[in-house]
């Protein structure tokens, strides 16, 4: 197996989001599969993290971390449903 599960996104995305988005429910733009980001297949970390749908293997998101910027590309995600405690 040459990838990790989506829990590998938790640390890098915690630089950007104050919430743990690996528990967010995502919807794959290619096949419509819904599920938590923690179930994505994550390749990398270099030259960037590439998270793919566990069903159709299309790219759901990429995260490139430069020295001064991070680029989060949600190209393959229709939406993220993020649980927020009251």
């Amino acid at each position, binding site marked *: 197996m040459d990838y990790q599960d989506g829990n590998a996104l938790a640390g890098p995305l915690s630089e950007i989001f104050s919430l743990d988005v690996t528990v967010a429910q995502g919807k794959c733009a290619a096949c419509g599969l819904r599920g938590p980001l923690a179930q994505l297949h994550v390749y990398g970390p*270099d030259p*960037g993290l590439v998270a*793919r749908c566990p069903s159709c293997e299309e790219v759901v998101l990429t995260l*490139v971390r430069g020295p001064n*910027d991070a*680029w989060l590309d949600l190209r393959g995600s229709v939406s993220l449903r993020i649980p927020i405690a009251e």
Partner: protein
Amino acid sequence: MGIISRAFHGRPREPDAKLPPGQYLVHDFPVLSAGPTPRVPLDRWEFSIDTAEGPVHRWSWEEFLALPQETPTVDLHCVTKWSKFGTGWKGVSLDVLMEDVESAAEYALAYSYGGYTTNLPLEDLLDGKAWVVHEFDGEELEPPHGGPARLLVPHLYLWKSAKWIKGIRLLNEDWPGFWETAGYHNYGDPWREQRYDGD
């Protein structure tokens, strides 16, 4: 001492002069992966040069191997900062593949089995600067390194040398590829350290 050192290392030139800024030298060949490694059967492999209107030229594996072959020895520079000197390849120059192509296009988008893409100005593929290679170090190119065939454009960062190449699309306007739309530089010249968008 210099003679002994040179013989021991088998390296007849000064490494530092060949290292672009920010790079370090490696002697292994790291594999970076953005997805599952495609396995392309040779009887179903084909390589195309096409335009938005359709294919201009298409080669089967046998037809591709029958083209004039070259054996470039080049230095590789990965955007993740490793460089590897003196890599030996065998393949077909893009000058040969483009020989009969009439086009006013200024841009190219290399596309791969598995869905990867990367963009380059067409002139960066011509005049002895790029090849489609199928052997590394005298052996068949293994799938983790882009086999059965990959693009080789050694004057740019290695992400431009698309693994598992399937074709090259000639375009009148620039279409940024996979990493170019995800934060990396549109051109990727290692000597100008063009790593990220805006560098």
